[in-house]
């Protein structure tokens, strides 16, 4: 039983982490493509149109990867988490099926039209198809977060005698207080990823003195989008999420903030330090007193329960991973604001395009939003442990009763091998597209 759940969790974690590399870019990028296309309609400058089409190519590659890695996610609910699917399918099946029906169809139908249909449709309709692709991809983010929010904070359900969860209030799924903050935070975070990627490609062109016109355009757009989205990710949405965790999952909150002991009045915020699970304290701690209470409740002296207030069964099972993930996300978020703020300053002073050191920095910064996004999800998912549906259904009780650990180990290894190949090919394709650059000839 123990190794069964272990491999099931490992496989889910591995495949979802890989899947989420792609949607985070497509969701953010679709917004920026709509922006480029809109600029083109306004200014009639050919370069905006070419930029939109260039990024749609990168979008398309990522989209394909999103599709082929997303289908295994959907299957795994049934293959590896059969008991969970059986018990809660009547509820989360709603949002997952809506995602398929409302967003994936929208996105995939109009993506094909955007790529092939420019000459047939004229510019206004072409803009519209781009907009619908954006709408589809954000809608799919919305529905999948509605699913996840129900697991984090179950609402609108009733549990029958046989243990099944039945839906009693459909609209509660969408007015879940967990949903809107999580959705906005997640979407802005995906805009962070895409703007870092756009800016990095721009920096690459400028540093190589190639496609200069586009290099500058991408840098400028990437930096502006990057700064705004990095700010929005921290305040109000990051802060808002933290308040929700404190309210709905206090045990997870204590663990991610690294509060081992409850303080009489006012909790400190841990900036740096390593959780020591044996002595139950933070080693090498650098902390600021009372700040956490203020940030969470706008009250310097409010008491925040530490991990000592919870039993071992109520606490997440991997506290250090949770703590580190959270601190990496927040730390990176702070650095992003700094980096993009600096770049924006130099852009405004018209010095950015010649600041080689900063350009190198921007070029190599693009992997970090991916890391922040993935660690952010680890905070959410590890913090939810030991429950699959928070407070109600334990993760152990959700696995497939008939699938043995040997089978899962075999398929896990298969996924690892296949995804390595997939990742390699993906890099080659994106690299090739970037190398070729936007098409400069006009028609």
């Amino acid at each position, binding site marked *: 039983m123990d190794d069964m759940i272990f491999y099931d969790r490992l496989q889910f974690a591995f495949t979802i982490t890989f899947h989420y590399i792609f949607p985070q870019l497509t969701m953010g990028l679709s917004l920026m493509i709509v922006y480029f296309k809109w600029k083109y309609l306004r200014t009639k400058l050919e370069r905006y149109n070419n930029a939109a089409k260039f990024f749609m*190519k990168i979008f398309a590659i990522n989209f394909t990867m999103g599709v082929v890695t997303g289908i295994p996610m959907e299957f795994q609910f049934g293959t590896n988490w059969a008991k969970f699917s*059986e018990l809660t399918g009547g509820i989360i099946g709603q949002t997952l*099926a809506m995602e398929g029906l409302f967003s994936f169809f929208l996105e995939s139908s109009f993506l094909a039209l955007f790529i092939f249909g420019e000459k047939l449709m004229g510019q206004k309709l072409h803009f519209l198809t781009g907009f619908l692709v954006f709408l589809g991809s954000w809608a799919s983010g919305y529905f999948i977060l509605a699913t996840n929010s129900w697991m984090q904070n179950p609402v609108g359900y009733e549990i029958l005698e046989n243990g099944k969860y*039945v839906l009693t209030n459909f609209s509660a799924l969408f007015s879940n207080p967990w949903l809107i903050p999580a959705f906005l935070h997640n979407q802005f975070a995906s805009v962070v990823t895409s703007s870092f990627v756009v800016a990095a490609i721009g920096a690459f062109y400028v540093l190589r003195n190639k496609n200069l016109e586009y290099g500058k355009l991408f840098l400028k757009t990437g930096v502006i989008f990057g700064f705004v989205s990095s700010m929005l990710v921290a305040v109000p949405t990051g802060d808002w999420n933290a308040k929700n965790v404190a309210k709905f999952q206090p045990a997870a909150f204590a663990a991610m903030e690294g509060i081992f002991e409850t303080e009489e009045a006012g909790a400190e915020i841990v900036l740096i330090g390593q959780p020591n699970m044996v002595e139950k304290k933070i080693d090498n701690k650098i902390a600021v007193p009372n700040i956490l209470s203020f940030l969470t409740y706008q009250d310097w002296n409010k008491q925040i329960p530490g991990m000592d207030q919870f039993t071992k069964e109520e606490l997440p099972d991997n506290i250090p991973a949770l703590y580190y993930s959270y601190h990496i996300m927040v730390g990176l978020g702070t650095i992003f604001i700094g980096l993009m703020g600096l770049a924006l300053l130099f852009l405004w002073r018209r010095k950015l395009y010649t600041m080689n050191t900063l350009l190198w920095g921007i070029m190599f910064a693009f992997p970090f939003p991916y890391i922040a996004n993935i660690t952010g999800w680890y905070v959410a998912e590890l913090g939810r442990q030991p429950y699959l549906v928070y407070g109600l259904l334990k993760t152990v009780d959700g696995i497939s*009763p008939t699938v043995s650990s040997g089978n899962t180990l075999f398929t896990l290894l298969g996924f690892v091998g296949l995804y390595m190949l997939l990742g390699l090919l993906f890099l080659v394709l994106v690299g090739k597209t970037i190398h070729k650059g936007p098409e400069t000839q006009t028609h």
Partner: protein
Amino acid sequence: MELFWYTMIAIVLAVFFILDGYDFGTGIIHLFFAKKEKDKEVIAKAAGLFWDSNEVWLVAAGGLLFMAFPTFYASVFSGFYLPLIIVLWFIIFRAIGLELRSQFNFQMWKDIWDKSFGVSSLLLTLFFGIALGNVVRGVNLGGVENGVSAYEAHYFFLPLWNSSFSPEGTHPGVIDWFTIVIGIIAVVTLSIHGANWIILKTESSINEKLKSVVFKLNIALLLLTIFSVSIWHIIKPQPFSNFIESPLLFIFPMIYLSGLFGTFLVKKFKKDVYAFACSSLIIVGGITSSLASMFPVILPSTNSVNESLTIYNTAASEYGLSVALGWGIVGFALLLVYFIVQKRLMGGKVDKMDYGH
């Protein structure tokens, strides 16, 4: 309400097999008949432009099944664990084959991805057929051994095959001679369908040849159909009881047969669309007839201890199914709109469309 969602899911599945079916079939034809580079390229394009929007239908069918019949979803997906995951891998190999072949211009690269596309399409089709065979034949629900269930009554786990390869008895494997026959039927059907699609969408040099291939495959399909109907009683004692009870259901086999006989006239058709329509009828008729013969069962039990899964004992709550009806109607209406828009703008032969990357 169960019946409504059952019908909707059947429709979505049928559409999936018509749409993605042609690109599976295209892969099979590509593997066996495309010899010249130019043909290989247009044929791959006839599938490559469309596969991802077609595969969304699979995602939608999965999502709807999860929502409406969660117990069935849980049982079948965990019970067929290995074959399903392997199907996933083929789906991935097929997709990357299509996307990658035209990226670099040297022969070995193209050959590798052509094979990846072709072989995966073939095996996927075979596996989908085998899956249908399993669902029709039934499984050892509850893992019964000597009259005692090893799991809860609606769970099971099958070996890939058992030593006798026989569909009879309580302990069938995933692959036995019956499910293989259904698998081959699927391969033949989709090859016909794929060939029709190529003829419709391309100006490849093998179009004329494909017409006679379709003719020959259709004869094979006719024989296989007769064979499988004649052995149906092995897996289901009274195979036609549903049809005899409600003769209206005969409409489904009729659809199948009209497609099958229509296909014999392929060479005479002035419009290639008719041929494609006929093979679509075969697919729809085949799937619906199998479902109709089982109704309301969706997964028969091969033992006498645990009862079969039906649309009634696996469905979600009444409330859930009815709210889903509300958004479902809106969703399907939108789908129809996209579909029409897309078909109007993307009609015609693919040879002349320039493919994005």
